[in-house]
């Protein structure tokens, strides 16, 4: 229905739909940035909202209706995102399945794979994790060594993955493994792995902010049915690279959503001493906070500009790799400034000596350090920008 509306009727229609369907109790709740986090808001309301979005296909708005989407184009999907933001609402269907695997399967998957895997993702019923990084293959992903042997009716996986986000809460995993050692990138195969497979062992890794959502994942003679091969054997690097593009895009918009949620201006106004003219008394902090606000604002405008360019059918001027780094810089700045504003109130780890806001911001600061590491490090993105976008020669 929404897909067929002319674009000028779409905005009021979607606004009405949100007003009618978005549970009031969820207003202003921070959106879960992936599907693995505990539900937010009053009990039941999150589940209700998820169901309603799923029924309308609006959790994965650009997917075809037959696979659980709403069949919207980019322009309408952008309007949807804006109206959600406007209404203090959010997309409840998050996670790697919706953001990364789905679009990739739509391009590379078989009809059967799409039919089986996409609808549960679109409904938020099944959660996916990403089995890419290995202990010796971080930035140099193609150096991966997990063995994948063709055993006739199935593949056999042996090896170890690391930094598998939420592996311990996931139903499925999309993974890349080595089917040939002859070529580095040309010996990689892309597979869908059921996390309940025998021989698969998951151990959470604790991060510097005390939270564990990354895991080490061990594969010990894990069998994967042949129908779970995406693309062709030894051609998985092509699939994985496309998936990583989706990752960069979604990470840079997520960062923005995050930055919108933590309002440093309001925190500074509540915590910091004021000068008689109402400005912050600490001019040193104020200057740096202002610099951050400038970056954050211009970053948000750059996202808008890219969307407008895409809408107009143009190639976006600003490369995705640049967006990823800008997003992580803004996020890192936000973390640093948050703890600096809190000053002596930013040293807390846990316990009731600090407010939950203070503890959350301190934890955010520590967590923000991963923005420039995961989803392709800051350094890798700069290489991509320089070589692929600016055309500078490889050394």
């Amino acid at each position, binding site marked *: 229905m929404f897909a067929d509306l002319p674009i000028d009727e779409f905005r009021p229609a979607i606004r009405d739909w949100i007003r009618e369907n978005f549970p009031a109790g969820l207003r202003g709740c921070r959106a879960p940035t992936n599907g693995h986090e505990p539900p937010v808001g009053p009990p039941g309301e999150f589940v209700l909202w998820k169901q309603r979005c799923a029924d309308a296909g609006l959790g994965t708005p650009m997917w075809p209706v037959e696979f659980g989407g709403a069949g919207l184009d980019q322009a309408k999907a*952008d*309007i949807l995102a*804006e109206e959600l933001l406007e209404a203090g609402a959010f997309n409840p269907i998050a996670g790697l399945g919706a953001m990364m695997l789905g679009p990739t399967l739509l391009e590379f998957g078989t009809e059967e794979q799409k039919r089986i895997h996409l609808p549960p993702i679109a409904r938020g019923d099944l959660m996916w994790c990403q089995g890419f990084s290995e202990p010796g293959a971080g930035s140099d992903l193609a150096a991966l060594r997990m063995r994948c042997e063709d055993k006739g009716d199935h593949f056999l996986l042996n090896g170890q993955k690391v930094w598998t986000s939420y592996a311990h809460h996931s139903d499925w995993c999309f993974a890349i493994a080595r089917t040939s050692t002859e070529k580095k990138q040309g010996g990689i195969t892309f597979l869908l792995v059921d996390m309940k497979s025998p021989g698969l062992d998951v151990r959470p890794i604790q991060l510097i902010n005390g939270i564990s959502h990354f895991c080490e994942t061990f594969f010990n003679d894990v069998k994967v049915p042949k129908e779970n091969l995406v693309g062709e054997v030894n051609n998985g690097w092509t699939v994985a690279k496309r998936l990583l593009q989706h990752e960069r895009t979604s990470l840079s918009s997520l960062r923005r959503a995050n930055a919108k949620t933590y309002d440093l*201006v309001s925190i*500074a*106004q509540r915590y910091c001493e004021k000068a008689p003219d*109402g*400005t*912050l008394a600490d001019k040193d902090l*104020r*200057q740096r*906070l*202002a*610099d951050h*606000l*400038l*970056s954050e*604002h*211009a*970053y948000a*405008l*750059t996202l*808008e*500009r890219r*969307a*407008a*360019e895409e*809408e*107009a059918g*143009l190639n976006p*001027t*600003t*490369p995705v*790799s*640049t967006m990823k*780094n*800008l997003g992580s*810089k803004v996020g890192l700045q936000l973390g640093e400034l948050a703890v600096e504003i809190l000053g002596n109130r930013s040293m807390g780890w846990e316990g009731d000596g600090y407010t939950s806001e203070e503890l959350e911001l301190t934890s955010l600061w520590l967590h923000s350090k991963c923005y420039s590491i995961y989803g392709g490090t800051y*350094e890798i*993105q*700069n*290489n991509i*920008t*320089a*070589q692929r*976008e*600016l*055309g*500078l*020669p*490889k*050394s």
Partner: protein
Amino acid sequence: MTDRAFVPNEEQAMLRESALGWVRENAPISDLRKLRTDNLETGFDPDLFAEMAEMGWTGILVPEDHGGFGFGHASMGLVAEQMGRNLVASPLIGSAVAATDALALFGTEEQKAEWLPRLLSGEIHAAIALEETIAHNPAGVALTACREGDGWILEGHKQPVFDFGKAGLVIVVARTSGAPGDAEGVTLFLCPGDAGGISARRLTQVDSRGAWALAFDGCALGAGSILGEVDKGLPALETVLDRARAVLAAEMIGSTTQAFETTIEYLKTRVQFDQPIGSFQALQHRAAELLSEIELARSAVWAALAAIDAGDDDVPQLTSLAKALAGKAFRRAAQEMVQLHGGIGMTDEHDSGLYLKRAHVTDMTFGSVAFHRDRYARLAGI
């Protein structure tokens, strides 16, 4: 999403292409070098400006009912951006943006009828006499205008006044009451360029543009010279300045882009240690980071221009955002242009120095990075 005009419409795209083509064909950067030696009375090449007028650029912001095109500031920004690429010297921003907007927004019908057609045709150009102290500070104006009979007498100093040479019209910011720093008491005057009681000294500037120091000593203006309201000129001035700032920022983006592209080209061709220097990762990363800074500024500039044309409330925020980021990006791009060109970049023969000097002057014009960061912070409530 309000339509931020991030993507030029068909008309604008054509304007941009024709401006870019004209700049490349008719306004090479060597023209700027010529200005340094030719020492023209205007400080810019009047023939070049006549061509701009002929192409209609002086009418982009003149309302249609006064014979102009009323295209808006995004269009003007697209033209300014192309001019910025080759550091083209012209009074376009002072005359066809600031003065034209001032008249169009705050002029009486009589004033508009008197001045707009002449600005539009390029018969005359206008200048803005605002700066007095070392730092941009619109409320800080000290030059006085006192009533005498029906008219006014102006006393004081202005420096720098860009493009004063042979200007037909000067918009003078004066104090009609209160003390320097007061928001009240600022008034805008329309002053003929050849008015008596003004002595002008030509300044030789690092960016080779025409600038003057003016001394007003018994400069008498008539009753009709008031633009807008007496004593209430500051908000009008800020509105006009924001428009000029946004278009100047667009010009700066053009200069920045050209400095960046020239540098990237050099990185691809200059060989040291048997490799093009652009293959060195440290330089690659600096190029990538510079690009990201330029892209942020670019978004801010087009958002500001679009907000002006849409009449949005957040013009002051967006303009300060744009001017601050363009100032940072231009300075950094020019600095890297010199550094990455190595020794040759330090020579007068190379263009790097021209961009570096222009970056400094444009940053100082209509408020520096520091000025606009502070203004943005105030507007953000911190």
